[in-house]
């Protein structure tokens, strides 16, 4: 630390300048380096969003009560298995409607690789489900059947998590009969 002049007294040369003497405190925060030429370092980034389900909120609340909610257009009657506030066909507002808990596999896949968030869950099945009298589909996980067993058109039924996570995976589908 710089030596201070006696209080209130100034030397003949005036106050001694501090610059040149100040320095940033050192830390033990280092950087992960993968290679040096070119210099490649680890650069961390993380964020928690304050995400509102807004007009879709009821869908997620209904899942906790074992109900699947879609949308029905108040103008043209078009019925959407995945809810949406306004009709894509005619633009009118929709109202909530309850979907049957049984449907058919419209199409499917088994993922052996995936996004980082779901990598530990592989292999998993994705399926688009069609419902009687409903115009559009619902994307879901299908469990209880393997790649060799799943068929387009097979009957499946909805199951719900007992402890909700308020995610679309609170509902999932299983084969209605033994595949």
């Amino acid at each position, binding site marked *: 630390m710089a030596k201070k002049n006696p209080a209130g007294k100034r030397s003949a040369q005036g106050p001694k300048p501090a610059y040149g003497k100040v320095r940033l405190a050192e830390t033990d925060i280092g950087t992960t380096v993968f*290679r040096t030429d*070119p210099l*490649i370092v680890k*650069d961390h*980034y993380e964020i928690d969003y304050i995400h509102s*389900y807004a007009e*879709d909120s009821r869908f997620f609340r209904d899942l906790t009560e074992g109900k699947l909610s879609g949308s029905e257009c108040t103008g043209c009657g078009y019925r*959407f*298995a*995945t809810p*949406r506030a306004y009709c*894509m*066909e005619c633009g009118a507002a929709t109202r909530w409607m309850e979907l049957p808990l049984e449907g058919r596999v*419209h*199409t*499917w*896949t*088994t*993922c*052996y*690789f*995936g*996004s*980082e*968030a*779901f*990598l530990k*869950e592989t292999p*998993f099945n*994705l*399926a*688009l489900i069609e419902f009687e009298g409903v*115009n*559009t*589909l*619902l*994307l*879901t*996980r299908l469990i209880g059947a393997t*790649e060799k067993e799943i068929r*387009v058109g097979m009957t499946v039924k909805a199951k719900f998590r007992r402890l909700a996570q308020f*995610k*679309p*995976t609170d509902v999932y589908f299983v084969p209605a009969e033994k595949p």
Partner: protein
Amino acid sequence: MRPVYMISGGITKFTKAEPRKSFRVMVKEAFDYAMRDCPKLTRERIDGTVVSYFSDHFTRQLKAGVMAVDMCGLVPKPTIRVEGGGATGGLCFQEAWRHVASGWLDCVVAMGFETMSHVNTWKGNEFIALASDTNFDYPVGGFYTGYYAMMVVRHMHEFGTTVEQLAQVSVKNHRNALHNRWAQHHYDLTIEDVRRSPMVAYPLTMLDICTMSDGAAVAILASEEVAEQVCANPVRVLGVGMGSDAMRMADRPHGEVILLKHEDPKWYKGLKYPGVHSFRAGRMACKMAYEKARIEDPREDLDFVELHDAYTSSEIQTYEDMGLCKYGDGGKFIEQGHPELTGMIPVNPSGGLIACGHPVGATGLMQAVFAFWQLQGTIAKHNEGDGYIQVKQKKSPGRRRMRGAIHSHAGTGTYVTVSILESTR
């Protein structure tokens, strides 16, 4: 709208990871290549730029567009960034076209890039999957290969398309790429090789899917006046078209086919369209581009197509959207060899995304550059003397000039652009 010409283009060789160059330098290199190829064009004649890159997550640099522009010495001229998923490059090309066609600017550089190596592949898959509905799709297991796999499973169910037919697309595109020095993968494959490679999402294997890449591409567009003054061999943008569809595949309707001029409604009785087996946006884009370019029958009126084959399955689905064959016949179309280099209409003579890679913001512009060289007849010049993939004009009565189409496509068919280019030779 006034006539617009492409007067030059440049690309970097796409690669899985290019840590020695930032996106700015990659764009600059592609830009310099284009400027060298059109020596009479000076920077002073360029009026502005349009820049495309898909994901701020990959770049982790907001307003990255202007950084590419300032590296090229093109500030303080007007610039804008465009983004639309996988079709980002195609949208960039068309935005530059609009700048010139409208008469606002006379010479515009469309420049695109992506640096996808900045995260690991599984994180990259996550970033890409954020381009699906984050309330209803992404949390279920967001993975684009999974989405396309579901689309083609339905295609197989509806039309009897086979996994071998998918594999044939990979074989064809990789084989074309053996003669393209700009391609990333030079593989001589068999159908069995494709089927034996690791399964990613049934039925798509590793070799059915393009590679996330680093790279840049540039296309320079100009008015007739500028083109005449600076370019000996320009290519005319004959017509552009664009289409869209619902973000969620689940929302796609099951209605009637949007017909092209040469199609008969009787072909599609009982077919529910587009469902998840076809890309309505692609059909819409084609219909519009064909009408603008006065194309009656694409099978006759186009000499080649560079289309968005992020997956072998989407190439087959796109043959149908583009009217190269009937809906449902895409599998047979490749099986019969029609899109091969020597077939009825060569598709992806460059090797496409499957062999060249898919640095998203650059991809649509890469297609423009390959198409430009094809129509100039300069493939060999840009390809170390190898002109094997140079397509020749079909013999068709009543048409004097060679034509090609470029097709750029975003996730599950949400945005699709189609642009028709014509030689002036």
